[in-house]
Each structure stands twice: as C-alpha cells, then as structure tokens.
C-alpha cells in the first residue's frame, strides 16, 4: 500500500479565481523520496501543504498510511498536529526564542513524551544531522546551514512516518546546497523514511529523487524516475524544464521500420532525421510531430560519421568556452542547433562541419 495517496485533489484560491492545484493525483511509495518539481506557481508547495494538513483541499482525497486525512466530500479533515509528520520549511522556521535543544524537543514535548526519553532522542537526532554539542546554543546564533540541520533534526526526532520538505535548500548558498543535498539523500537512505520534497531546481530533483512528479499550472505533466524524466520527457514543457534542448518540427516520411526506427523530414523537406519510436501506435506517413534532441547528445566533427544514424553538414555560428565544455550554435540550412561539446573540440565559428546524433537520442514530445 502506498504511504501517501493524493487522489484527484483540487485547491482553489481567491474565491475560485485561481486553481492552484487542479485534480492532481500521485502516490508516494513506502520508503521512497518523491520530488514535486515545477516552476513557481505550479501548485507543488500547495500540494505538499495539503499533505501536511496546512491547507484544506476543495475536492479530492488525501490518504496517509491507509488513513483518510482530507476529504471535503466526506467532511474529513485530520488537523496537522495529528498527522504524525515531520516537516522542514523553506525558512527553516526555527523558533528564535528557544535553544537548539528546545527546538528539537518540541515535537516530543507537544506529544507529552517522558523527560528521559526526550533527552535521549534529541541527542540522537542532533547526532544524526551532525550537530552534537549544539544543544544549548541559542537558535539565533546558528548559520543558515546549521539552522537547516536543526530543522531536519526537529522533523526527524519524533521518528515520523512521513517527512515533508518544502524547498529546504533554496536559502543556502550554491556550494552548501550541493553538500546538504548529498547529506540529505544519504540520511534518507539510512533512515528509510518516506519523504516528499518540493523544489523548483531540476538538478536538485535529479540528484535526490527516487521518482519525480513534474507539475505545471496546477497539473501533473509527468511522473517518473529521474532517468525517465530526463531521457524520455513526455511533453515539451518537461523536456525544456529539466534541461537544455533543441526542438525540430518534422513530418513522418516513411512507415515505421521493423527495427523501431521512424524516419522524418525537416527543413525544406530535403533533410532527414531518424528517431527511435517509443509510442504505442505507429505514426502515419505525413503526420507532423515535434522531435527533440539534447545539446550534449549532438556531436560536432570535421567529417561524416558512420556511427550515427543522423549526420548533417552545418556551419558553426558561434562558440563559447566554459572550461569543462564548449557550447556551440550551428546552422543546418537556416535551422539553429545548440550543441554542448567536449572542451577539446576544435571547430571555429564560420567553419563548415558535420553535426551527428544517434536515433536513440532523438525523441518525440507532445506540445
């Protein structure tokens, strides 16, 4: 049984003028880390807050561990404090009038735990996040990273069945963010706690998630593992949101081959592109579709390549050196492709070259 079932949930704001979340459904499996990913205003935080019980859904049902916690139609609403969750907030929400110890002990005291147990558990939670010896510090004396750890310790001290994290890393500087991300993932693996993590940062979602729910304007665009989301995005929005990409309107020119390769035409019709077909029904000849290929899957070379199904001659328009790689813009006829190439690639702007990619790296996306 899934740990959380989010079933056809809708949330409206401003008297129905804004549908922040519109019939959204997903499940969180036991022990997994699920990331809700999307741009601001996509409904990811609202969804998380509805799992937490900080917002009431207008429609739909939320179930945690088999217990129905929100259902407007059945007039069920379990208040936040009785949902048995741990939560880390974007602002950390460390109470400034309490010490680190008091902050972390709060979930235990609120539930009237025994004194002896409290001291032990707080110590354990602080050790878990690497803050041994900080117990008596005032919460306001901590750095951002330390506050983050206190927030995490506080969320875990009660050993909740569900951990909710609302953009917890977004207030940290870039280096610390990457380090905390790794630690968080490691901690989640060790404790095996079912977690829901909200972020707008696609790299963060890739690095952390067991599965990702990509949201946009209150709808779910795609649910899948990070690999599925990146390599086989279902929609144009997802493909763009999770990474840089080239789009190409094209027309099916030949029936689907037995090896699963479909051939298309683009440009003035003289250019061909092959693509590995992943859809169910075979495409009809003459059908228009949008194919795409990521810049890092394009190769720029001085001569034609026998290893790639797709090879076009091109003109290099511009080149930018980034240290670890180079980024090119090249033109095939008048169509521009972004290419991310190894730093050692030696082609200069204005030169002619060949652009190549494998059929397996080309995919069709929905608008």
């Amino acid at each position: 049984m899934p740990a959380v079932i989010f079933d056809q949930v809708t949330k409206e704001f401003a008297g129905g003028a804004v549908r922040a979340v519109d019939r959204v459904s997903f499940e969180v499996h036991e022990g997994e880390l699920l990331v809700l990913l999307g741009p601001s205003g996509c409904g990811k935080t609202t969804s998380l807050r509805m799992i937490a019980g900080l917002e009431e859904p207008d429609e739909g049902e939320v179930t945690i561990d088999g217990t129905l916690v929100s259902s407007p139609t059945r007039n069920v609403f379990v208040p936040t404090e009785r949902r048995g969750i741990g939560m880390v907030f974007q602002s950390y929400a460390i109470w400034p009038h309490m010490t680190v110890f008091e902050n972390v002990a709060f979930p235990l005291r609120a539930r009237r735990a025994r004194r002896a147990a409290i001291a032990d558990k707080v110590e354990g939670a602080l050790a878990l996040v690497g803050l041994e010896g900080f117990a008596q510090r005032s919460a306001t004396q901590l750095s951002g990273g330390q506050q983050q750890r206190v927030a995490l310790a506080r969320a875990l001290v009660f050993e909740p069945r569900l951990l909710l994290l609302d953009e917890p890393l977004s207030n940290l500087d870039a280096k610390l963010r990457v380090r905390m991300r790794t630690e968080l993932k490691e901690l989640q693996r060790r404790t095996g706690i079912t977690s829901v993590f909200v972020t707008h940062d696609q790299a963060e979602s890739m690095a952390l998630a067991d599965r990702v729910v990509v949201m946009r304007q209150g709808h779910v665009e795609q649910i899948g593992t990070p690999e599925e989301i990146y390599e086989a995005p279902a929609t144009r929005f997802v493909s763009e949101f999770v990474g840089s990409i080239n789009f190409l309107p094209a027309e099916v020119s030949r029936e689907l081959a037995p090896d699963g390769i479909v051939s298309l035409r683009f440009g003035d019709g003289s250019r061909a592109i092959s693509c590995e077909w992943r859809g169910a029904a075979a495409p009809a000849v003459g059908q228009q579709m949008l194919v795409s290929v990521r810049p890092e899957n394009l190769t720029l070379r001085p001569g034609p390549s026998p290893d790639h199904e797709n090879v076009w001659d091109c003109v290099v328009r511009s080149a930018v050196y980034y240290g670890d790689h180079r980024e090119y813009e090249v033109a095939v006829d008048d169509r521009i492709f972004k290419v991310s190439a190894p730093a050692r690639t030696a082609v200069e702007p204005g030169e002619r070259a060949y652009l190549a990619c494998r059929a397996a790296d080309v995919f069709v996306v929905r608008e």
Partner: protein
Amino acid sequence: MTGTSPTEAGLAAPASFALPVRRRALRHRVRMTPGFVAAAGVALFTGALVLYPVGMLLFGSFWTSRPGLPGQLTLDNYVSAYTSGDTYKLFATTVLLMGVKTLVAAALALALAWIVTRTDTPFRRALEVLIITPYFVPGILEAIGWILLLSPRTGAINVAARQIFGLSDAPFDVYSIGGMLWVMALGSVSFMFLLITSALRSMDASLEEAARASGAGAMRTALTVTLPLIAPSVLAIMMLSFIRAVESFEVPVLLGTRAGIFVFTNKIYSAIQDYPVNYWLSTALGASFIPLTLGLVLVQNRVLRGREFVVVSGKGYRPRVVRLGPFRWVAFAVCAGYFVLAAALPISQILLGSFTRVFGLFEPEMLTLNNYTALVSDPRLWRGLTNTLWVCATAAVVTVALCSAIAYIVTRTKHPLRRPLDLVAWLPWTIPGVVAGLGFLWAYIFFPLPLYGTTALLVIAFVTGGLPLGVRVMAGGLVQIHAELEESARSHGASWAYMARRVLVPLVRPVMAAAALTLFAVFSRSVAPVVLLAGIGTELLSVLLFQYTLQGQMQVVSALAMILLLVNIAGLAVARRVGAFGVKEEV
C-alpha cells in the same frame, strides 16, 4: 465607539489608520471547530462593543426626550439643528479654524523636516528628538501651559509685558481665535514633522543626487524635485492632521468656549453641560459628526491609496546634505525655538506654577509645596489617581488581549467574519472622543446591568476606543512573525493552544507589552471620551485636571498636571524600553 479620539490614539506609532484593505472573499467551508466558534464569539462581542453605543446615539438623535426616558421617534432634532444659522456658522468656524491651523503647522513641519533630514544644521540628531518631544506631551497640558503664560490677567508673559513696558492692558489673550490657533498649531507640528521626516527619509536619494548632478542647486533641487515627490504624502499627512484637529476637544473647550468661539466639539459639550441642558442639539450634532469624520477619513485613505507611512526611520543611508553656511545657525534656532515654544516653555511654566502660591508673580517667598500637599489631602484627587492607575491598566490589558485575538483572526485565519471584524474594530478611529462619550452616556445610562457610574464603564469606554490602535499594533507584531513558525509547531504535533502558549505568545510578548504600556499612556491622558462618564467615585486624573482648569483653580491644576505628566511619561518610557529590548530582529 472610541474611548480614544484619533488625536490621542495617534500617539504611539500609527501614522495613518488606513481602512482595512478589501480582499476578495474566499469560498470556504465552514467547520464548526471550537476555534471557529471562539473566533465568531470575539467578532460578535467586538461588534456589540462598538455598534451598540453608535446605534444608541443614532436612536437618541431621533428621540423626543432624554436618554432612557419615554418619548417617540422624531426628526425634530435634526430639523431644529439644521434650520439654525448657528449650526452653519459652527461648520464654517470648524473648517476655517482647523484648515488654517493645518496649513500653518504643515508649512512649519515641512521646513523643520527638511532642515533635519537634508541640511548640515548643527546637532540635527538632537534637534530631531527635541522636535518630536511635544508629540508626547498630553494635549491638555499644552493648553494649560499656554493659559498660564497668556491668560489676560495672570498669564506670565502678560504680567511681564505689563511690568516691563508699563502697559495697562494685557497684550495677549489666549482665549481667542489667535490663542486657539497658536496652541493647536504648535501641538500638531510635531506629529506632522514625524511623518514628513519619514517620508523624506524613505525617498530614493539618487533622485535628488541626479538633480544635483544635472546642475541644480540645493534650493532648486528642494523645490523642483524633493517637494513635488513628497507632495502626495504631505497632502495625506495634512488631511490626517486636519481630521485630528476637527475632532480635538480640550483646546476648543478650554480656550474657545469662554470667548464664545464654537466649533463642533465644544458646542456638543456645552449643549450637555450648560443649563438648560440641550440633549436634542448634542445628539443631532454628534450623530451628524460621525458621517462627517468617516467621510474625511475615507477621503484621506483614498489620497493615501494604501500607502502607509513607516515611522521607523533609517535605511542607514544619508542623503547628501545641503550646506547652509552661516544660515545653519538660523536653522538651528528655528528648530530649537519650536521645541522651546511647544514643550519647554509651557511645561516649565506648569512646573514653576505647581510650586508657586499665586500666579503671575515670581518671587522666592512665593515658592511652596502647598499645591502638592493639597493634593494629598483631597480625597477626590486620591481617587482620581488610583482610578487612573487601575482603570487605565485594566483597560490596557483587556484591550491588548482582545486586540491580539482580533489581529490573529484578521491576519492569520480565513474566518468568514474576519473582514467585518476588521472593519468594526477600525470604526472607532473615525468617531471623535466627545461623540463617543455621548454615545456611551446614551447607551449605558439605562443599561440592564448597572454599569453607569462605575469604573467598569470607563474600562469599557477605553477598551472600545483603544481597538483601532491595539489591533493595528498587534497585527503589525503578528506580521513580523513568519507564518511558518506557527505552521511548523502545528505540523510537529502541537495543538493550536499548545502552539499559542509555546510559540506565538512568547514571540509577540514584547509587542503586547509595548502596546499595553502605550495604551495605558493614551488612556491616562484622554479626556473627551470619558469626561461625560467620570463622576463622583469614578474620578480620573485627566478629567479632574480638565474640570479644575475650567474652574480656573490653576495652582491645583499645575501640580495635578505634573503628576499626570509623570504617569504618562513613565508609561511611555517603559514602553520604549520594552519595545527596544524585546523585539528581536528577523523574527
């Protein structure tokens, strides 16, 4: 209804009392939780507190006889009031007098604010503090101080002028239009200065620097860039000051009535106090006053368009100062002169008077402590002191408790009654003190519970009047506390009550303390809303002071005034301390 007229409620921080902003109503399921019911209870209680006296005043204005006596509905009260030429004269006098006062005070306030924020005048930080000081002097003391200085017979300046120049007549008379203008203008400069300074400080300095860089001199920059930019703010501030003036009570009664100069407030007071008592006129005028001030406040809000003045100063930046050269000492003298006239002179005259046997003469053998010992032996004054302490303290605590609940409901919940609650708690802001007092009189004189003539009624009057200031301060305090601090407690297992006890209250406690002390100071000085309610056994220092001044017992008055000033300053000083030390940054 207000126990605290805007004049007094403006005391602490709120530079403006913007009408609560209209938000679109949320479609929200109503869940009959205990919290929901409690919030509804708070809303209904507040509504009753405010609307019952207003309603009774309106009813009274359509009633043929006195409060609580049998009679019938009638329009005669209004007909009589509005067919009398006196009423229109009253309007004209009010608008003209207060309008001129506002213009004069605004010009001076603008000049002082510019000097302090934009020039190299020496000691401008100290000057700024001095210019703000009169703001904290209760209005009634301002009037008393100038009576002691300028009353025709015994006023110190008149006595001195007669002796020095050998005049037979007093050159000044405080009981005149000029005297009223003088005292009121001096009193309101400080308030306007406070707001204009913050408007000047919040202005982007680069706008002025751009003018200087484009070749404009200091004066040209001030007149062509600075002034037009803050003009909307200044206009709104002037309107606010005008409204406060229209509602002001002590100066018109103490200085105007005696000279036969009537504005709205002293007319209403005279109609009930003078024989024969004229209830119909007082209620008809009082009830007409409410839409008038409400209209003015709404217009002022419109001018302000949601902008508010932040009194908290300083982004830490200092705009380029204008070098005044030798004129900087002139500027210094203007600022210092204002402080002397608005605070130092009247207060020191009261202080001196409180140790003097006879007024107008200062010789060492006239010094005495009798005025103070007389206070000690007068049972009314003792009761006044103890009542003031108890009633104002109780009212302050109750107001803060109620306003905390209201502010929480309004800012943190989606309760369907939160918008009406916000409005009704704001309404007393628009009701002048003396009209409020009239409403309370009318409402509670035959109330089922025997409240009339008790200190409990004074508490009710103060609490009702303190709502706008209290809600405003508490809402400001709550906004400072990130909602996630509260949500985080709830999501970690705390019930609402546990969260409130462990998180919310500890975090807003400094604000609550500061609000309570400020309200205490405001209540302890206010006259208008309680002057009709405080009687024998329910004396208040402020009301006694007012009545003794009317009777001309100036020796007792000055000693009493010093005590009221001390009570006030003590409250405000503690409030400042609490405010300064309690509120943590970034909470």
